[in-house]
């Protein structure tokens, strides 16, 4: 009887944990405008791009950052990439603006649909999208040679 009880308990634990670990493992894809010639970016460069330190693409097209609104998973991963809290992120961009290093805080898209529209329209656009939400026609680039879902993919 006790073995059955233990088995049931273990089953319950496994049932509780499986969906959680699967959610944690979801990768965040790096998405660019479909006309972009970019196919790969390093994690170091990605951080520089989203910190506004790298402001033009190799062809000379200005980088256009599309950032998801606070509360989104992509935003959380972005802040982790930059090593900032939400408050530090706001202060950082205000400081960058005062320094003349940026015109304003990056474009914050309040919805997924608006993110996709922005990516389509701006030639130099780059954003982060939850890999579960990827659709055909979205250009995903490699991160340090890995696509989302590959072993060793760094952004999740």
């Amino acid at each position, binding site marked *: *009887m006790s073995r*059955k*009880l233990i088995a*049931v*308990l273990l*089953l*319950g*634990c496994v*049932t*509780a944990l499986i*969906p*959680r670990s699967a*959610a944690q493992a979801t990768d965040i894809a790096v998405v660019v405008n479909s006309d972009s010639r970019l196919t790969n970016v390093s994690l*170091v460069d990605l*951080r520089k791009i989203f910190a506004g*330190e*790298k*402001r*033009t693409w190799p062809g*000379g*097209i*200005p980088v256009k950052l599309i950032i998801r*609104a*606070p*509360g*989104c*998973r992509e935003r959380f991963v972005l802040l982790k990439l930059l*090593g900032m809290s939400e*408050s530090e992120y*706001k*202060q950082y961009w*205000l*400081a960058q*603006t*005062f*320094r*003349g290093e940026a*015109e*304003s*805080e*990056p*474009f*914050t*898209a*309040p*919805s997924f649909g*608006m993110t996709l*529209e*922005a990516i*389509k*329209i*701006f030639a130099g656009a780059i954003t982060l999208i939850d890999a579960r939400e990827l659709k055909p026609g979205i250009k995903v680039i490699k991160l340090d040679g890995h696509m989302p879902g590959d072993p060793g993919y760094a952004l999740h």
Partner: protein
Amino acid sequence: MLRVQNIAVVFLLLSGSLWAQSSAPSDAETIALLAQQVKALQKETMELRGRVKTLEEGGVKVQTAPPEAAIAAPAPQPPPPVPDAAATEASPGPTPEVHDLHRIQWRGFGEADYKVLDQRQPELATYGFVPGSQGNFYTADFGLFVTSRLTAKASVLSEIVFEEADAQKYQVDLRRVLLKYDYNDYLKLSFGRYQTNIGYYNWAFRSAAWLQTTADRPLVMEFASNGGLLPTQAIGVSVTGGIPSGTLGLNYVAEYGSSDTVRPDISGDGFVTDENNGNQTNVGFFARPDWLRGLQFGSSYYHDQISNNILNGATGEPVPLLPRSLGPAVRYNQTIVNAYAVYVAHGIEFLNEAFLIRQALVRGSLHFDTPAFYSQFSKQLGPVRPFFRYQYLNANSSIDSIFNDVGLRFGPSFGARYDLDDYIAFKAQMDHTVRRGEPDLNGLQLQVAFTF
């Protein structure tokens, strides 16, 4: 057996609820996102209604398509316009849409201060502080920061500062006005009035007290118009950019322009020194290595020619020369060498800058060296950031030294910055300054700095 089954059912229910809790943040994110979208749409609707009302009041008949027309409209639609960067954020606090007016972005910053010094002999008053008072309130700098993008690569930046002067009068200073052209990451050009990139502090904090951790600037980095030693402003061309250097992250800065520094004596004698600077050249390099995020170190070299032209601060008339003084006719070669290393990451701010200012007589051997440094450390602890700063400055007191009013000064400052929210910060700072030939100076400064 029945008991075991009951336990199993209860446990499975419990595990199900646990799973539900683990996925709860995702639901919360979704709800927050939806709430933001609804808020953004409501705001947009209200704005559109307001515009319709305005147009109707102006005699314009606004036509709304009948529902049938909307249903039977198969014509291809142009891609929906993407709202401007500033028009969509729904975060709390001042939202960017209020900062965007016909593609002109604007921001503002200001401060309100209370300062008290135990000075027995009044020194220079700046930012509205009254010398010799037991303590008083003042508003220092109130700035408006305006930018506008002209093309994908060109933009305009301006910084207009209303600075409190004596007797609560305000003077306007166009601190920066720049036409910027960013060709790429390796070549960024700026034309107009700029703040000289001597060292780190000027670049990092500009004029906004809200950006600074401390309530005031280190004396050596103070604006020249407030008694600072460096030529902080110039009109000319500034070129910056990256240098391909792998993980070192090397950048350069080169500036050539005209500055005309008029610096009030900080000893409180009422005189100002009009340096009549010639054209200035400033070149510098700095690195942001990939291997230690937050580290930046660099060096710069500045050169111009200046005079020691002493004027009465109130009348602008030349002050009679002291016996054996060289006077304003002679020129000095001024070179300023700076080196710095800063680390700003993970809530830590560690700033270290050193300067050597040399003013050497043109066609002569007479020269004056002014070494200076400051070191500042702070750490974010929740909303509070305690800080400690130590500064040192040693100017020659000879009558021909342009900085003879400064002399030797050194001492610590400490205090804390408390961020009430993302836009308002309260600071409290204590200073102790040792001065050559003068009693030590102790001060307390309280400040509310804000941006909007």
